[in-house]
């Protein structure tokens, strides 16, 4: 029941994030069914690689969020989609690398804010964010995070993805929660389920 409940909470939140992205890019966004995985921290890099197939290389933006439940939000962009960004954003020509980074940071910030904001509103919790920063550019998904940099033993991954109806642009939002936050989130989900 918890997985189901979390999936539904994530589904409601991603609807809001998708609408924001649609507004930003002025196009229709297709939403996915959220995926939820629990993984040993050591296996997080491989799990990420599998989640992101068939993307070979991704550009990633990360943001930490702070609340009673804390964790990391990572937004990933596929290589092919990045090439279309200039068009989508209405720029002429090709984006300079610095412009591209700025656009990706903006998009990530909007998605993370809307999605996590939506989740935490359902939990009845306030939350804060760090500024988004570039985690990696054109990097294989398995190499995004080094297992030894995770100060956790287990992690929960929640993945939602946004595809545009036309073109190759897609982005994935992955939320990583450490063990203690997993327990606290379980309490929040308990409350939602108990209220049913």
């Amino acid at each position, binding site marked *: 029941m918890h997985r*189901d*409940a979390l999936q539904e909470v994530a*589904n409601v*939140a991603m609807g*809001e994030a998708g*609408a924001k992205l649609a507004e930003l890019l002025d196009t*229709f966004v297709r939403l996915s069914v959220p995926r939820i995985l629990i993984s040993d921290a050591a296996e997080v890099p491989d799990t990420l690689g599998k989640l992101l197939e068939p993307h070979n290389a991704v550009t990633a933006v990360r943001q930490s969020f702070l609340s009673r439940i804390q964790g990391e939000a990572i937004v990933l962009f596929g290589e092919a989609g990045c090439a279309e960004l200039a068009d989508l954003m209405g720029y002429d020509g090709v984006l300079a690398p610095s412009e591209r980074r700025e656009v990706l940071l903006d998009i990530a910030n909007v998605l993370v804010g809307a999605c996590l904001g939506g989740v935490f509103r359902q939990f009845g919790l306030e939350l804060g964010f760090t500024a988004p920063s570039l985690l990696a550019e054109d990097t294989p998904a398995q190499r995004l995070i080094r297992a030894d940099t995770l100060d956790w033993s287990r992690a929960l991954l929640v993945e939602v993805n946004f595809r545009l109806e036309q073109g190759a642009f897609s982005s994935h939002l992955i939320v990583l929660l450490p063990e203690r936050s997993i327990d606290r989130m379980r309490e929040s989900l308990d409350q939602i389920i108990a209220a*049913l």
Partner: protein
Amino acid sequence: MSTPVLIVDDSAMARKMLQRALPNDWDVEVTHAANGVEALQAYRAGKAAVMFLDLTMPDMDGYQVLETLRRESLDSFVIVVSADVQPLAQERVKQLGAIGFVRKPVTAEKLAPLLREYGVL
């Protein structure tokens, strides 16, 4: 006679929330379906005079259910229940024959006026 109502959502929690949001004084017989395939089976078994339909589901999503109903000239009052708040999503499902759109999370306050408006209640 009770009205056959079908609740279609891949999430058991979402189905439960919807069932709780149905008006108390509405005489219904509720059936659940977890995806589009199950939904059409239930429809064909006469269990969906009114259908509450989620959009994002594995094994046949809500759009495909609406397309099938339309293609086969099937008749059900379909109310889409979705977290997708893009205006275009609402337009599309209405073009495909849905009579209403309710934004998740569903509450009794959101549902009752819609059911009254369409004379379902």
